[in-house]
């Protein structure tokens, strides 16, 4: 795993902030990726065009970086298919139910000091920390 690099983290984060603010200034929309992906999958949703374009942009990002000599490292994924499928289902149902994920609640919501997003971010952070503690250290087991 790559060592902690605060400059890359801040720079990458700033780009995420630029993209979130720009989508609001241009399209008047919150850059919440679970919402964009979920509404793209909902055949009845309005304004699917820009959502498809946003998802194409996300997918093009690692290809563009690879073209300029900065390939994305391959992700280390869990070996258990049950964990991958169960985790995917929980992320999908959970973000749709709460109306946002790390981007919509964690960045856009905190940026506008939304009480709902502050609560959501606190909950998914604490729950994820507990899950990692149980999985890696067996706390509570």
């Amino acid at each position, binding site marked *: *795993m790559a060592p902690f690099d605060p400059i890359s*983290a*801040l720079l*990458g984060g*700033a*780009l*995420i*902030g*630029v*993209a*979130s603010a*720009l989508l609001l*200034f241009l*399209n008047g*929309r*919150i*850059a919440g*990726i679970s919402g964009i*992906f*979920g509404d793209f999958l909902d055949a009845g949703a309005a304004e699917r*065009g*820009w959502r498809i374009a*946003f998802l*194409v*942009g*996300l*997918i*093009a*990002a*690692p290809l*563009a970086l690879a073209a300029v000599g900065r390939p*994305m490292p391959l992700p280390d*994924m*869990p070996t258990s298919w049950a*964990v*991958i499928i169960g*985790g*995917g*289902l*929980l992320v*999908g149902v*959970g*973000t749709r139910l*709460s*109306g946002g*994920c*790390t*981007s919509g609640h964690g*960045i*856009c*919501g905190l*940026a*506008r000091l939304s009480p*709902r997003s502050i*609560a*959501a971010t606190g909950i998914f952070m604490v*729950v994820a*920390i507990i*899950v*990692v503690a149980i999985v890696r250290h067996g706390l509570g087991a």
Partner: protein
Amino acid sequence: MSMWIGGLVCGLIFGIGLVISGMTQPTKVLGFLDVFGAWDPTLAFVMGGALIVAAPGFYFARRRGRPLVAARFHWPTGAEIDRPLVVGSALFGVGWGLVGLCPGPAIVNLPTMMPQIIVFVAAMGAGMVGLDLWRKRGKTGRVAADAA
């Protein structure tokens, strides 16, 4: 300029930010969540960097009458910390803690064509569509009950 150009440009910048910051690597995210192990502060710096830019951006957007391309701003309207928000956030936290992927990084990883990524994104999409269908069904049921 149309809405989709804004979507494409913002998606591209967002995705580049996720790759550069290291957040497309699940072990980096799990390293941040592992506060009882070898803690990796990367995710806090990514969120900090994003908020330094997004917070003033959102502040100035709120003072504008309308966006540059769209007819109006679509601000989230909900104010209540209700049960779906709490339960949904907790379910998301379990999935995020198990795999280390949230929706953005999962989608940015799609070009790797790794079966594990494709299956994760498919399961995520199935969860979203499944919840939509369940909610619509519930609504139709209520409407039918009201009509009767």
